[in-house]
């Protein structure tokens, strides 16, 4: 049976929007958020955007081997971050969730340290860039195999149910991820068990070069919730307030034990799939430009300015401050120095087995 959202209808044909192109509020209810909170959304999006630009530069400078552009996804990501109880709820993110992680409170030095793969990486530089995680923030470390984090996310939600705590899991992924068998296996288990979890698809219309029409036969991702007896919401993922409110409703519904939901955020990635991609091979430039015109930061800035919550001065100051923080993190991450070779042999098991002790000796003498 389909569970109804509180304020929003599932399975709409058009994406749910709360902010119009001109920045005007078009929501069906009274907006009740503090100015600080409203400004906070913008600052978090801006930080995500700045990180994206800065990391690409780092990559061109040869200071990191890889980046996964996230520009265009900020509104959905920041909206989700604010829907969670930091350090209480759990997040199973994917590699493109830069703004989501930093908005959730991941220290810049941890994110940048992971991207640069130095001693500053709390995870000991074990994985390629854009694979962060955090025990403190309950952020499950990103793994490369697409959708392989979905069944584990459901397992954590089932464990929460068992422990009777009021925690919730948020699990994010792209549109391509929904084609993997593991995605289905996980979401289906959540539906069958009524697990306290929210599934969030950041649908940017492409899985590397494969466009959505070749990915699946359905009109959108939200409708797939029908298969699992949960509500599916189609949301304008370039509208940070729509993203926030729909996510918040779904998270709270899960917290109350009503059950899981699936949210599709319609977004677009401005950059290539990664620093190794050449998107000109499969995307017309006009398409990219058309989406850039709907930029989530620009639209939301118009919203704030209409309410006198933002202006050029604020913008300038914010960019300066965030830029400094970012540069500081990069400097510290670099200064931390390269990860030592002997780290290679730790953490395979709780204790280093005799076999690995011998192999370490074989390499390091």
């Amino acid at each position, binding site marked *: 049976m389909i569970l109804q959202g509180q304020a929003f209808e599932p399975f709409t044909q058009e994406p749910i929007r709360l902010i119009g192109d001109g920045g005007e509020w078009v929501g069906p209810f009274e907006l009740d958020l503090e100015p600080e909170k409203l400004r906070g959304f913008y600052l978090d999006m801006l930080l995500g955007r700045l990180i994206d630009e800065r990391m690409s530069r780092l990559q061109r400078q040869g200071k990191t081997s890889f980046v996964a552009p996230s520009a265009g996804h900020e509104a959905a990501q920041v909206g989700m971050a604010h829907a969670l109880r930091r350090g209480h709820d*759990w997040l199973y993110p994917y590699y493109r969730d830069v703004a989501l992680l930093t908005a959730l409170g991941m220290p810049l030095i941890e994110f940048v340290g992971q991207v640069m793969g130095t001693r500053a*990486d*709390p*995870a*000991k530089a*074990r*994985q390629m860039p854009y*694979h962060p*995680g*955090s*025990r403190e923030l309950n952020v*499950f*470390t990103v*793994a490369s*195999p697409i959708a*392989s*984090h*979905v*069944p*584990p*996310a*459901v*397992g*954590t*939600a*089932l*464990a*929460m*149910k*068992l*422990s009777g705590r009021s925690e919730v899991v948020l699990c994010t992924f792209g549109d391509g991820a929904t084609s993997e*068998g*593991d995605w289905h*296996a*996980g979401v*289906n*288990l959540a539906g*069958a*068990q009524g697990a306290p979890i929210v599934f969030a698809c950041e649908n940017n219309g492409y899985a590397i070069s494969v466009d959505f029409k070749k990915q699946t036969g359905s009109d959108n991702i939200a409708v797939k919730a029908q298969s699992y007896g949960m509500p599916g919401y189609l949301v304008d993922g370039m509208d940070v307030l729509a993203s926030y409110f729909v996510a918040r409703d779904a998270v709270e519904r899960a917290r109350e034990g009503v059950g899981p939901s699936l949210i599709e955020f319609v977004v677009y990635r401005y950059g290539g799939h990664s620093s190794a991609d050449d998107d000109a091979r499969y995307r017309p430039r006009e398409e990219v430009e058309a989406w850039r015109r709907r930029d989530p930061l620009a639209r939301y800035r118009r919203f704030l300015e209409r309410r006198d919550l933002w202006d050029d001065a604020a913008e300038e100051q914010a960019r300066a401050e965030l830029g400094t923080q970012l540069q500081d993190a990069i400097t510290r991450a670099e200064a931390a120095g390269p990860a030592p070779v002997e780290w290679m042999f*730790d*953490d*395979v*098991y*709780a204790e280093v*087995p*005799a*076999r690995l002790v011998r192999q370490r000796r074989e390499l390091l003498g």
Partner: protein
Amino acid sequence: MSVQTMAQAIATTLDSEMARDERVVVIGEDVGKRGGVFLATDKLFDKYGPDRVIDSPLSEAAIIGAALGMAVYGIRPVAEIQFADYVFPGFDQLVSQVAKVRYRSGGAFAAPLVVRMPSGGGVRGGHHHSQNPDAHFVHTAGLKVVYPSTPADSAGLLRAAIRDDDPVVVMEPKRLYRAVKEEVPEGDHVVAIGEAAVRREGDDVVLVSYGGSMAETLKAADALQEQGIRPHVLDLRSLQPWDEDAVLAAAARVGRVVLVSESPRTAGFMAEVSATIVEEVMDSLLAPPLRVTGFDTPYPYAQDREYLPSPNRILRAVERVLTY
């Protein structure tokens, strides 16, 4: 102490561990009311209810993946894969997520979980109810693998696995589930992971085996005794880590070794044992270690018995190493 079959020993061990630690839960297909198709989870559902004895949808990826998600949160799941042959739909969860989560997270997250699976042939199951995929697990860094051959060891190793801080694959020789009954110590009976057991003392030839093939290996050993040949028989019990000390010491002392496993020969686990023996103690060898294994074919139906290493095939190999 009570006399039990292997299947009973497993069920009672799960029961006692669930009673001891409320974080221990069971998840799998038909583990609930049905008690598992081999009754290895018999009565647990009535005693602990649907929250701790979870009948999963028909998906091994969901079972293993959910177990991982529970483990990183602090629950101690024991997942059942109905037949080892059906681990493959969940193989990515096992090798890409479970085995690597501690490593890739730099120790932030770990997966103390157990994946139990009825394994091996001899039950007329054809090739999707008879396979022995142990080599796949042993080759995957981050996993531990145990493979008991007796009711008591099944209890002791399963208990050790549940209490271990790393993911442990527990392979159970299904054709021995009901084959024998023996005294099974209860309470805190634990068999340390990584320790082989000496099943016969001798110095004419070393027979190394594990799991289901221990039955045929011991038959062969008895036949040798009657011929006045004294075999030294090792039951590995654990494959990852495996007891290199016990095997190398015996191989060095006796110099003649036969390795018995029902898994397919090529790149099977016994290739690793053979290579290690030669690397470490070649000069003490009086003959090359010989492998008696399952064949490099899918597991057949009509030749269910012929596929398995028989006492005769083992004896022929022993003869070759003795007369080398």
